[in-house]
């Protein structure tokens, strides 16, 4: 448990990027060239009309700016904070060539803060068209799909197994990037559009797939991924071994009730984190900021092959997190039921595997132990194959198989978000776009159906 004071915690767990002042936003917005057919629009997976919304900020039309953004992306308050903008819009900004790109993410947040503070619904939903759609999972993909359909007059019910809606925006994205309040306000916007959100309902357990297929005109599956899988090594059940997602979720929930609750969370002095993706980076950051003396990320491959973004790597090194590359955990060692270390083998790059990357090969006899009192597993998330089987859907390597309109092999069922993302980066913004595309697909299909039925 951390010994840090509340003040220190507030500093370490407040948003990393501060909001812009009105003047800062205006000056930055006026720097935007208002390019025609701008590359930032293309670089954004939801194709937000960036130059237009920035121009509206420059003229103090913040409501107009927010509407321009929300028309393309209903999860824009989250996206403004969590998108890897360096890789997306800001990376494409033409000003990046010889000076600083426009701070598109922070400008977007400025417009979003305005509309959420104003608490004015930016859209009027179309009159009801009498059609019902069930959305399974209240993450970004589900919320976006539900909102888009509600705007078109559909009666949408979201079924969410967790006690709180919002998916990984609520439970998974660290509070320094997105306070839980932002995720929940975004859900409230979708509800204000007329969407019903039923939490604590797990499809496949509390409600059957068949039930949904009978009760609704269409179903959108946006169930994300499962929990962190087992490593399958000895000692995994020792006290002090946790997995990254629940570790992060606890900090999110603690922040919701007041940052002082962070002090109740267990954190080790010497922490090892297994994996080197975004989740590992986040878990390591939190462990460090909760006061761990030494945090070490253990990764099977080399520095250049980490799935984390470059800016994340730079960031985490500045946080003081250390790395052990080319190391493969083979067992957790402990005393009296508690973790005391992580046993690893040294790894050498072997021949290229199916994805072209060198296959890591453990070197026999090279075992060494990293002393630690907490082990955090961040080795990806499990696939949701059983749930897809309930719906009788064809799958592809554990993901739902969909066509370009995000329709599954059952014509009544569409799917999107992380649960279909067999390739490419799983991001909030791509999940949001999936929701939009599926809503369009559902509308095109049900619209036709409705006509045929008339």
């Amino acid at each position: 448990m951390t010994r840090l004071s509340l003040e220190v915690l507030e500093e370490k767990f407040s948003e990393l990027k501060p909001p812009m002042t009105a003047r800062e936003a205006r000056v930055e917005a006026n720097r935007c060239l208002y390019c025609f057919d701008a590359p930032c629009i293309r670089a954004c997976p939801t194709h937000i009309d960036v130059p237009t919304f920035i121009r509206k900020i420059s003229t103090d039309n913040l409501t107009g700016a927010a509407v321009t953004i929300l028309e393309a992306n209903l999860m824009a308050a989250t996206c403004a904070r969590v998108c890897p903008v360096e890789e997306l819009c800001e990376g494409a900004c033409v000003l990046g060539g010889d000076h600083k790109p426009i701070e598109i993410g922070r400008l977007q947040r400025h417009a979003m803060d305005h509309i959420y503070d104003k608490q004015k619904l930016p859209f009027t939903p179309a009159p009801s068209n009498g059609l019902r759609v069930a959305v399974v999972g209240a993450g970004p993909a589900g919320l976006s799909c539900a909102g888009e359909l509600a705007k078109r007059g559909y009666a949408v019910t979201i079924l969410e197994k967790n006690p709180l809606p919002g998916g990984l925006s609520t439970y998974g994205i660290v509070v320094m990037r997105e306070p839980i309040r932002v995720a929940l306000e975004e859900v409230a916007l979708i509800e204000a559009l007329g969407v019903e959100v039923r939490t604590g309902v797990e499809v496949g357990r509390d409600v059957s797939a068949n039930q949904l297929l009978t009760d609704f005109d269409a179903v959108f599956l946006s169930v994300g991924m499962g929990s962190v899988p087992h490593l399958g090594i000895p000692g995994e059940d020792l006290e002090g071994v946790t997995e990254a997602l629940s570790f992060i979720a606890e900090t999110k929930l603690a922040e919701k009730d007041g940052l002082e609750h962070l002090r109740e969370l267990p954190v080790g002095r010497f922490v090892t984190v297994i994996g080197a993706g975004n989740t590992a980076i986040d878990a390591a950051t939190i462990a460090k900021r909760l006061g761990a003396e030494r945090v070490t990320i253990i990764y099977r491959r080399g520095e250049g092959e980490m799935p984390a973004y470059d800016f994340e790597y730079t960031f985490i090194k500045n946080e003081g997190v250390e790395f052990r590359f080319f190391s493969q955990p083979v067992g957790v060692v402990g005393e009296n039921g508690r973790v005391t270390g992580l046993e690893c083998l040294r790894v050498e790059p072997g021949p290229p595997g199916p994805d072209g990357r060198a296959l890591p090969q453990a070197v026999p006899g090279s075992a060494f132990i990293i002393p630690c009192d907490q082990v955090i597993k961040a080795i990806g998330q499990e696939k949701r194959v059983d749930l897809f089987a309930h719906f009788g859907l064809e799958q592809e390597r554990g993901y739902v198989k969909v066509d370009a309109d995000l329709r599954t092999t059952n014509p009544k069922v569409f799917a999107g978000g992380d649960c279909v993302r067999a390739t490419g980066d799983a991001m909030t913004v791509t999940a949001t776009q999936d929701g939009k595309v599926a809503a369009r697909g559902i509308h095109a299909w049900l619209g036709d159906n409705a006509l045929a039925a008339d």
Partner: protein
Amino acid sequence: MADLSIDFCGVKSPNPFWLASAPPSNTAYQVNKAFEYGWGGAVWKTIGTPVLNVSSRYGGLELGGQKLLAINNIELISDRPLDVNLREIAEVKRLWPDRAMVVSAMFESDPKVWADAVARIEDTGADAIELNYGCPHGMSERGMGSAVGQVPEYCTMITEWVTSAASIPVIVKLTPNITDIKAPARAAIDGYANALSLINTINSVVGVDLDSFQLRPNVGGKGGHGGYAGPAVKPIALSMLSEVMQLPETQRFQVPISGMGGIQTWRDAAEFLLLGASSLQVCTAVMHYGFRLIEELTDGLSNWLDDKGAASIQEVIGAAAPRYSPFNQLDLSYKVVARIDEAKCINCNLCFVACDEGAHQCIDLTANGAKIDPAAYSGVAKTQPVVREDDCVGCNLCSLVCPVDGCITMIEVPPERESVTWGEITQERPEVTLEWDKMERYREEKGIEIH
């Protein structure tokens, strides 16, 4: 959402924004495209007598890294044959019956030529004619454009030729290249103009190249004055609009005014509306950014009207016009003083130097609460500007140079004496306005102290 539609001397359009007569309204291709984007109307690029253009036509004004704060041009009226223009105008109007189609014209000073032109313009189905009395270059040397706009008698005469021949409304577009804009405005109304529009471009030389000594724009080593337009001219346009709004003739005959000159954002548009313009035209901003600007213009205007609780644009047109007053009607007892919010102050000291050297020496620099002499100060404590409110004349300069929002506010303070205007003093105590010793006695009497 507020109703943005207008009825301008019988010409209707779904929103007040029209393309000004200029390159963006040169062809059917462009005007069709503009209407697709949502422009409410267009004033076709001026048609008239044959011309030939030069190459290299525009110069731009850049300030502090912002490009094209103004454009300067030496382009003439349309250089496309009259027949082609008229045919395209008819085509576009047929396709877009709900948009305003105004034809700008400039012909030689001959009543028969004008009568013939009016008939051909009316044949296109256009909603109105705009008389271009403004072009300041090329055409004026040929006795047209601003050569007409600058001579009130010509202005009345030609306007009358046109209004007597026309059955559709006639708008007279005024040149700003004149000492008193009221003279040509009155002259146009005397010639029975149905409406006025202003401003056309302002005479200007936009710059000289410091290496080649060439004027910008350069035509084979030479250059001349061109027409100046764009954001930088807005204050001049707003002033001329206000002057013409005050004119008794404008008020008596309720002559509507189409405002232009520097409209780039919805905020500019709102200012023109508040001062009385009831249709708006845009040129330079479109030349800079394209037709897509219309979305920001209408969206911003509409959100602003919603915020103001106005159901229609009509509610704001002219709402600020009555405030426009001559100097001698301003209340001499009204008083504001500058106040610096030290919590917001970033200690750039720009207000200090502005007041000390450019105004009335009413701001002190302090350190640790004590006044310092900046030339002698070598301490480490931050310097803090402080206003001596008793000495402040309320000129606004410090608040204008302050880079921080809401840091220097001009606070209204209770008047120290009875309300009086210069006009009243002139009437009641004319000697005070003529002789310094009388003025000094008057000040003593009223307790007016000049610091």
